């Protein structure tokens, strides 16, 4: 897929779009550094693309007549659509929303192994694909709120889901009169345009603002759940743990807390149109996380420290070639890692705004401690059951 696109669009492009939905004024965003992106042009009449190919084929939101003027059939305020419901954050949101009594519809991509766990929880699962915009509108029928926590798979080009898919989704949502749109962005995304994913997120934020949809943008720092696969599991399995020596600190947060706060924010009418940043109670460096894991697991990790300079070098190298640009995009975060920036914000105001007690937010120590106590107990049980020495999950 990526091979085809990149060979056909060899010219480095500039990303422009005309915001046309609510105001006639032209907002122009530029995507400065990306070499591989084709020109996406959205205009009132439809879409024209750089190579004469329709990259974004959603015209639903584009025509002026599709702007929601009449209220139409009222929808129940408890009906929500979660995009990306199988993801780390998405599933927590689905679960939380179901528990709070919402009717949850999940937009998932058609796949050979369907997401049965969502159905088992009582959610409705609909198949659609953000990269195929024609599949989106049907899923939005009867929906009050859209929560968008989708992101592209690691093997996909960064642009297809996170930019083209999202634009199509927002346009459809606007056209179908969705009454609230929740979008997850990355903290500090406006300060790092050199990282493609962050720039895309920032562009979407702006796009959403211009679209006139009632929306909430939530900027996140990092998920605790991600640390399990990255550090905790390798330490327990006595495999090598890869870390960087970057001084960057990230305030990791439990996705269950994010889900809880999101739903509170969703119901709060004062928050509509605002930008919230959710950060965990404390910011951690990679090394600190690894040390914490080692302490809790009671064993030393086999740490392979990759200097940030190597990451950056790799990125530089990969940027020389057309076909390695996906890789470069993926490694782009290393640019941020070199600065000793802190991915965290004081949460006092947000807590007050949402009416949440800061004591209810899980700390990383508590989270990892729970994990290790549980997993070590499970391992002990497993070992007691069988004489097997290699345990794979």
């Amino acid at each position, binding site marked *: 897929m990526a*091979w085809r696109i990149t060979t056909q669009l060899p010219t480095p492009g500039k990303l422009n779009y005309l915001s046309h939905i609510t105001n006639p004024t032209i907002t122009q965003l530029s995507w400065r550094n990306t070499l591989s992106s084709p020109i996406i042009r959205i205009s009132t009449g439809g879409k024209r693309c750089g190579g004469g190919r329709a990259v974004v084929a959603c015209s639903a939101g584009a025509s002026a007549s599709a702007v929601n003027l009449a209220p139409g059939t009222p929808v129940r305020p408890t009906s929500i659509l979660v995009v990306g419901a199988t993801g780390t954050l998405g599933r927590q949101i689905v679960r939380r929303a179901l*528990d709070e*009594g919402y009717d949850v519809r999940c937009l998932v991509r058609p796949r050979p192994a369907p997401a049965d766990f969502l159905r088992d929880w009582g959610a409705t699962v609909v198949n659609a694909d953000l990269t195929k915009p024609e599949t989106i509108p049907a899923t939005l029928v009867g929906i009050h709120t859209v929560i968008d926590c989708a992101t592209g798979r690691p093997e996909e080009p960064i642009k297809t889901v996170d930019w083209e898919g999202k634009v199509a989704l927002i346009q459809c949502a606007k056209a179908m009169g969705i009454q609230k749109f929740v979008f997850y962005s990355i903290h500090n995304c406006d300060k790092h345009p050199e990282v493609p994913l962050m720039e895309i997120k920032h562009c979407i934020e702006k796009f959403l603002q211009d679209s006139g949809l009632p929306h909430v943008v939530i900027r996140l720092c990092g998920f605790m759940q991600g640390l399990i696969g990255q550090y905790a599991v390798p330490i327990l399995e006595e495999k090598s743990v890869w870390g960087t020596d970057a001084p960057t600190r990230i305030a990791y947060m439990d996705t269950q807390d994010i889900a809880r706060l999101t739903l509170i924010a969703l119901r709060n009418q004062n928050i509509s149109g605002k930008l919230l940043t959710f950060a965990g109670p404390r910011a951690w460096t990679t090394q600190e996380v690894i040390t914490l894991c080692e302490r809790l697991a009671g064993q030393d990790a086999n740490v392979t420290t990759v200097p940030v300079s190597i990451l950056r070098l790799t990125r530089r190298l990969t940027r020389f070639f057309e076909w390695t640009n996906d890789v470069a995009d993926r490694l782009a975060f290393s640019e941020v890692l070199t600065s000793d920036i802190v991915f965290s914000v004081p949460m006092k105001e947000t807590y007050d705004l949402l009416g949440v007690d800061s004591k209810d937010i899980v700390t990383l120590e508590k989270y990892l401690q729970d994990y290790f106590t549980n997993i070590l107990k499970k391992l002990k049980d497993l070992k007691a059951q069988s004489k097997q020495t290699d345990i794979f*999950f």
Partner: protein
Amino acid sequence: MNGGSSGISPCGNGSLRGTNNLFVMFTSPNSPHQRPWLTATRRRVLLTVRATVDKKNTSSNNNNNQKKDKNPNASETTGEQEVLLRRQTLSLDDVNPVGLGRKSRQIFDEVWRKFSGLGQISRTTRADDKEALDALLIREGPMCEFAIPGAQNTTVLVVGPTSRIGRIVVRKLMLRGYTVKALVRKADEEVVDLLPRSVEIVPGDVGDYSTLKAAVQGCNKIIYCATARSTITVDLFRVDHVGVSNLTKAFQDYNNKLAQLRAGKSSKSKLLLAKFKSADSLNGWEVRQGTYFQDVIASKFEAGMDAKFEFTEAGDAVFSGYVFTRGGYVELSRKLLLPLGYTLDRYEGLVLSVGGNGRSYVLILEAGPSADTSQSKLYFTRISTKVGFCRVRVPFSSFRAVKPEDPPLDPFLVHTLTIRFEPRRQRPVEGLAGAKQDLRSFKLILEYIKALPTGQETDFVLVSCTGLGVEPTRREQVLKAKRAGEDSLRRSGLGYTIIRPGPLKEEPGGQRALIFDQGNRISQGISCADVADICVKALHDSTARNKSFDVCYEYVAEQGRELYELVAHLPDKANNYLTPALSVLEKNT
């Protein structure tokens, strides 16, 4: 393995570099990123691969040695060797370009994933092998904030799973890992579509006892949130009254069957203390009389009292008589004989099946070391009966010490039971107002006395209503049916929780503080999700057992018309708000 992998790498590279065709063959369509990476940064990372493999091997070797030291199990070590051998032979088999290429690709893949994971922020790369771990930890496992210990072994029957409350109840139960059975009238496709797939659907009608037998099979708990679809009396009667009573019967029958299978030793079976079936069964019971006043005047105006306990020809054991003396009483007493191995501390109260003319009686328990009756302490409670037969439940917790300084009743020490009649504080029986009643005479027909097994938790959660949301013209009928249903549940002997929510609202739960109250004083509505949450929380809450309560949103005054300032809300939903809220409410209501 060491040599194997280092041999593979260059070979694999060669094949990869060789022809484009081969290369395309190796690269799966969903992983385009390896290709560029190979070309650009092949050399350096290859070194890293080898290094890590070395490290891994040495560490696992060490590990094996350690394990052997710890656990010198012969079979285990041979097993390991076998595995190693198999691995080696496998790698020998794979010495062809395709296999080598695939293998090298796997290694690259792994390393690449880790490497690129470093350059990312909140994206979690998830490979397929992580799915199982994920399921274990994040979805069902203990890491989930919804997880409830014991939920896996609990089967809950939800009656009315498609009702407004029911569908949320089903979802909540599924999220918490319960096994859920759903009783539906007809298992139509549209009904089935509404329910999660792993819910076991049982067709049945609460109005028809015979269909409920299958439904209660294997159930530990029941949540009843069905309600009549109309306010026509027949419907109300069928669902709200007979439905509840049928289901309690079916559930009790099932429990009794289990108890029988376990030779009456089930924790669900009641303990028979006395059964008055024959004249012999009256042996041991002793009739006594006395007065509270020991003064002379009382004896001067002695008007007399008399009582007898006899077995009538109709087959009833009747305790009857009269007390005209001021401050006098008559009582029927007996030492309790418990079967060997049984103690009353595993029971939570007494149930008496009695009939008669509706007087109230004082039940007195004597507790203390049975060897030395002089140390016995007395505990009493008052029970009222109805005209005709009824069953009276008397929890041990309702007994109070005669002497205030005595400790609360310990059922373990109880050795004597007394039923006392006294003319004080008797109320005339309603409905017999025309007939002249002499409140000083009494008649009590005893059928049996049993001890109720203790249960920590509620077995049957019933969602009733306060009648606030019902249209006024039909309110009386609706309430009548609902109250009748509640009563049949209370009498059933099951541990129950009766929830009477205010008018239901379709909105997300957990937003507003809730008021728990008894005595029909609430005025606000409540969201369906909150009611569902209370149902699910009540399942494992010992304070919810045998309680009925009203629940609604906290009253919020209109702007500018507040009488009081709001000082405190109930705690956040994440905490268990139910226990503190319910612990202050009356039991057995």
